[in-house]
C-alpha cells in the first residue's frame, strides 16, 4: 500500500500535483481484489479458445454485413446466434461479473473525485468533439 497519503490531510490547501495523486490513486486501485479479479477474467477471456473461435466467426459475419452481402439475412441471424452463444459461455459470464464489480468500484471513486472538483470527472474526461457543453 502507498503510505504517504496520510501525510496530507484531505482538507489541506497545499497545492497537490494531480499527476502524482492520480498515480497514487491508480496504484491503490490496482491492489484491490476487484481490479485483480477483473484482470484475471479479462485474461481468461482473451485466452479462451471457444471465445476466440466465436469472435472470429462473428467478425466474418460482420464483414459480410458491412459489404452488404446479406440478401437472405443469414449473416444477421448467425451473428445473433453467436452473440447469444458467447453471452452464455461461462468465461464470458465471469468476465461480465468481474467487469461490473470493478465498474461499481470505479464509479464510487469517480463520485468522490467529481464531488471534490465540482465537475463530473469521467464524463468530461472522455474524448469528444461535442461542443454541447453541459
Amino acid at each position, binding site marked *: 500500500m*502507498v503510505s504517504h*497519503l496520510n501525510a496530507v490531510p484531505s482538507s489541506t490547501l497545499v*497545492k497537490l500535483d494531480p499527476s502524482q495523486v492520480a498515480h497514487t490513486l491508480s496504484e491503490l486501485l490496482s491492489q484491490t481484489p476487484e481490479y485483480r479479479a477483473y484482470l484475471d477474467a479479462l485474461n481468461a477471456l482473451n485466452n479462451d479458445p471457444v471465445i476466440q473461435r466465436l469472435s472470429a466467426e462473428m467478425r466474418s459475419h460482420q464483414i459480410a454485413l458491412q459489404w452488404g452481402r446479406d440478401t437472405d439475412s443469414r449473416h444477421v441471424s448467425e451473428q445473433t446466434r453467436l452473440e447469444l452463444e458467447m453471452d452464455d459461455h461461462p468465461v464470458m459470464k465471469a468476465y461480465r461479473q468481474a467487469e461490473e464489480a470493478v465498474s461499481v468500484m*470505479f464509479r464510487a471513486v469517480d463520485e468522490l473525485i467529481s464531488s471534490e*472538483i465540482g465537475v463530473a470527472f469521467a464524463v468530461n474526461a472522455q474524448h469528444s468533439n461535442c461542443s454541447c457543453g453541459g
Partner: protein
Amino acid sequence: MELTAEIQTAARQLGQSLRQDDYIRTYLDVLEESRTNPEARALEKKMYDEYKALIDRQQTSETLTPEDTRSFYELHQQVQNHPLLSKRNDMLQMARPYLAAIAEEISLVLGVDYVALAKPR
C-alpha cells in the same frame, strides 16, 4: 460500494488538486454565474422544458412536425449564443482535455480504460 480509507483519501485529493487548475476554477466561477443569472437560467430551463415536451410527445407515438423541431433548435441556438452560457460551455471544453489527460494517466497505470469503466450507466 465500500472503498478503503486510503482510496477515499486519494480520490478526494485528486478532486481537490484538479479543482486548483485555472481552467476548472474559471469554469466553476462561470457555472455559478450562469446558475445565478435569471435570464440565462430561464432561457436554459425553457430549452430543457421544450426538449422534454418533444420527447414526451414522441414517446406517445405523436409525429413531430418540422415546425416543432425548428422551434426547439432556435431555442437551442439562443442558448448556444447567450454570452454567459456560451462562455460556460467554452470553459468546460477548455478544461476537458486536462481532465482527459489525468484520466489517461490512471488508465495507463491500470492498463484498463478508466473512463469507460467509471462513467455513470
